[in-house]
């Protein structure tokens, strides 16, 4: 059977993608960000999965106000990097895993989570920046990716509790797939940041680090935190962090091994947080 072996958590700041694409990685400002991912790239080479289940949010790219799915799973064979207004990122086309994705969709919907099934969409920086951070700049991404988009743009976004329970349903779905695949689940977005209004630029390092502590040690309790605390303490866009709870919920109930932890301020407007957790 398939198995989730590890989870990765990372911010997906678009400026990180731009820094990579424009060759700015050696500038001191960006060095401080990329240094936190040196271990991670080595770890990825040594622990290459068969499939990455990548939880992210679409930033008004594939989903306009025409259609706002709370949870959308990509079941396509491939996904093009999107033109978000600056032109598409020069990164590889993302190959999907339609068989596993369809299996997960069927299982999770039967577990009472109403997923939207998407067979055609472009993927934006929310998905491609984490791949760049973890894999560098390869000619092809190392394995197929299942995009899983969560609405965190139009309020209300799904609660932390619902995200955590959805992660559990995804775990069950993966473990009922016959082929013995090594699956990683990634939760992306955050950490504290606000991109709008006079409060733009908000960072709350103390809250972020407490979030990382609790995500590792007491995720079930962390999942009870209401929306308003994210907005008030971590900024209006800090609410992206609920997506990390999907990945955490998909991990084993036993305590994970913390392989890597990194936190840095700033990347553009945002606090960068990053964890790698392995299942026992």
């Amino acid at each position, binding site marked *: 059977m398939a198995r989730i072996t590890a989870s990765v958590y990372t911010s997906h700041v*678009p*400026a990180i993608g*731009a820094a990579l694409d424009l060759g700015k990685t050696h500038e001191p*400002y960006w060095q401080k960000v990329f240094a936190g991912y040196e271990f991670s790239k080595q770890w990825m080479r040594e622990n290459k999965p068969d499939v990455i289940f990548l939880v992210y949010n679409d*930033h*008004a*790219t594939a989903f*306009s*106000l*025409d259609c706002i799915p709370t949870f959308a799973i990509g079941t396509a064979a491939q996904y093009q990097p*999107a*033109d*978000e*207004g*600056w*032109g598409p990122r020069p990164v590889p086309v993302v190959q999907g895993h339609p068989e596993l994705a369809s299996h997960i969709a069927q299982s999770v919907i039967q577990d009472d989570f109403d997923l939207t099934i998407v067979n055609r969409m472009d993927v934006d920086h929310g998905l491609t920046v984490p791949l760049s951070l973890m894999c560098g700049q390869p000619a092809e991404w190392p394995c197929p990716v299942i995009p899983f988009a969560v609405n965190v*743009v*139009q*309020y*209300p976004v799904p609660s932390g509790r619902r995200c955590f329970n959805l992660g559990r349903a995804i775990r069950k779905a993966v473990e009922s797939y016959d082929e013995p695949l090594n699956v990683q689940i990634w939760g992306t977005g955050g950490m*504290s940041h*606000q*991109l*709008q*209004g*006079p*409060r*733009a*630029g*908000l*960072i*709350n*390092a103390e*809250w972020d680090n407490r979030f990382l502590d609790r995500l590792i040690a007491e995720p079930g309790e962390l999942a009870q935190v209401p*929306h*308003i605390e994210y*907005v*008030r*303490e971590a900024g*209006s*866009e800090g609410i992206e962090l609920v997506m990390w709870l999907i990945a955490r919920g998909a991990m084993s109930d036993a305590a994970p091994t913390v392989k890597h932890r990194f936190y840095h*301020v*700033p990347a*553009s*407007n945002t*606090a960068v947080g990053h964890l790698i957790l392995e299942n026992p």
Partner: protein
Amino acid sequence: MALDKPYLDVPGTTIFDAEQSRKGYWLNQFCMSLMKAPNRERFLADPKAYLDEWPMTQAQKDAVLARDLNRCIAEGGNIYFLAKIGATYGKSFQQMAGSMTGMTEEEYRDMMIRGGRSIEGNRFAGEDGTAQPHRQPQGSAPSTTF
């Protein structure tokens, strides 16, 4: 019974909820059109004519023409949609976010390098933090436009 909106007392912040989304529908959909290069070119060539193709309110069009993101948000815009306007003008997210504070690009960037805006005094309306209404504008930028 009205919906519970516990986020209305967060200073300097507009939550893009269903009500804002209704208000800003055409403004945001106009922004989406800028994801296509030919549309960006047409918009840049004559912004006013391009905007007139959309059933937006005059206040929405004026806010876009003024490149004032605070006004765009007040008219129902959401930053991830509005970012397409900034991108069309070659602006980064940091330039766009900073423009809403009244700080110059350098002032805002330096604030971020120093660790970002402090949460202290910025949790609730009525406190004395930098995001509160009585502290605007925050820097020496000539305007809150990008």
